């Protein structure tokens, strides 16, 4: 204790000397700090401008939150109301799951060849690779909800449009994920196949495919999880699933039913997550090290 105190006293006594020896430590604002501060100030300024531009008035916020808490009170207890409505809701849930399953599988199958075309090591040539990459990017840039609107105007209202919407928007995601998995694959098996006289297709079939298939299966399961979430909302634009019921109930202010549907979605998503998580863990374990 005494020793540390005397150290401190000694340091304080020699303050001027320490300052002279380590000038940078005592600068009020080092240059790197100044840049970071300016960046923070700019970000904060943009935030304030955004709040102003997007009508964040305190009165509106207070009113809105009061209203929201009122709604929350009305949501208890969650209750589907009549039996026939419960059946409708469960049917919507089944549709949602069916949309997610079919959309994911269909997209995976269609994206499979595209992934190979978009990967640097398996594509036909640079131009094909570049074009397929950009096409996948374009498809991915459009949200599933927009695809749903377009498909609804092509095949009409109903869950089939939802399946096609999820399928289309996922082709982009899968193509990108698959091509990245293919590019990350080990080159040595391909070289082995080439050395023993195999052509390019043989190299892909026996050198690349066995390595990337488990990775792809993992991606498919993961996207199935994510699509269960997206297909719950796709019904908002009339493309089937539980979203139609949900948006209808919100618009007609049936808050008990809304909370029931939301709870149902939460439980379903949790169950699907748990199942696919176990499957993915099993896949990762089964993958040859």
């Amino acid at each position, binding site marked *: 204790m005494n020793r540390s105190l005397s150290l401190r006293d000694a340091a304080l006594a020699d303050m001027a000397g320490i300052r002279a020896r380590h000038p940078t430590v005592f600068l009020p604002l080092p240059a790197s700090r100044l840049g970071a501060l300016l960046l923070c100030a700019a970000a904060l300024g943009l935030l304030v401008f*955004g709040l102003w531009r997007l009508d*964040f008035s305190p009165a*509106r916020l207070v009113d809105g939150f009061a209203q929201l808490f009122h709604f929350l009170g009305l949501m208890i207890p969650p209750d589907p109301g009549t039996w026939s409505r419960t059946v409708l809701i469960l049917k919507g849930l089944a549709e949602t799951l*069916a949309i997610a399953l079919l959309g994911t599988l269909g997209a995976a199958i269609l994206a499979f060849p595209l992934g190979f075309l978009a990967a640097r090591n398996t594509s036909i040539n640079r131009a094909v690779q570049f074009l397929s990459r950009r096409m996948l990017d374009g498809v991915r840039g459009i*949200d599933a909800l*927009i695809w749903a*609107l377009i498909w609804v105007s092509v095949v009409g209202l109903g*869950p089939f449009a939802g399946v096609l919407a999820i399928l289309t928007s996922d082709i982009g995601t899968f193509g990108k994920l698959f091509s990245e998995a293919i590019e990350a694959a080990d080159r040595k098996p391909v070289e082995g196949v080439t050395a023993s006289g195999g052509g390019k297709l043989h190299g892909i079939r026996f050198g690349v495919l066995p390595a990337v298939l488990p990775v792809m299966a993992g991606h498919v399961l993961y996207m199935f999880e994510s699509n269960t979430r997206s297909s719950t909302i796709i019904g908002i634009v009339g493309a089937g699933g539980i979203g139609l019921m949900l948006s209808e109930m919100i*618009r007609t202010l049936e808050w008990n039913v*809304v909370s029931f549907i939301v709870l149902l979605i939460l439980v379903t998503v949790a169950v699907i997550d748990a199942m696919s998580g176990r499957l993915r863990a099993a896949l990762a374990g089964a993958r040859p090290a």
Partner: protein
Amino acid sequence: MATALTHLPDDRLSELLHGYRAASRGQRRRALILALTIAALVLLAGHVAEVDLGRLWQHGGAFFGYFDRVTMLESGAGRVWTDPAEWFWGWRKWSLLLADTLLIAYVGTALGAAGGFVLSFCAASNLVRNPWARGAARRFLEFCRTVPDIVFALIFVIAFGLGPLPGVLAIAIHSMGALGKLFSEVVENIDMKPMEGASAAGASWAAVVRYAVVPQVLPNFASYALLRFEVNVRQASVLGFVGAGGIGQDLIEAIRKFYYNDVAALLLLIILTVMLIDLGTERLRHRLIGAMEARA
């Protein structure tokens, strides 16, 4: 030099082949069962989702026809790109809407990241020992990220009225849930030594977080927030479908009222913006990661 391939005797070969088949039989059977299960599920799902391949075959051409139609000028004078002035007649309004969309995504991400920042420290197992407080924070974050943002937007539109405000709040809440989880995972993986040092020197919980945790996690947090911003730009472009501001409002109107050229123009604008934002944030994140590695 004469080379000769050594051939195994036939009975030995058949024995080996037999062994190989026996070994791979179990695996094959499992693959077959898996394939049959998936096929059955697909058939069931196809029935539930009213899949009608005949209808797709009939109208499938209409899908490509749609893109053919949206790129044809209303006057029938050729493709839209031959007359950009006519095609992008509303560019003033649209670029303003696009800027609003980006602003919605930005403000939503910023507010969500701030909320996730605070809650992530409450949800991290190495900072909060009380399992009840931790569990409550985690369940809350889970709820926020599982309910889709457009559902929040639907409810908020009724509570707050039409406009971008409910959209921002919906994005903020959903981002808070998603970022809070990622942030708390980062916090759980930090080096514990600076924390021990700070608390040994008598720092309070808040001071430990400020001086021992935040400097370690900030670059990772920023990287995740940028990634979320990317996602939110896409989300903000469709929030207008339910009346929550941004360019989606005009897009859904154009699709529903068959203003074909506007559909093409708006889709192109959205795709280009999303691509630009993706490229920009990717660059920024690479620089951040580079800075992190330089420091380490």
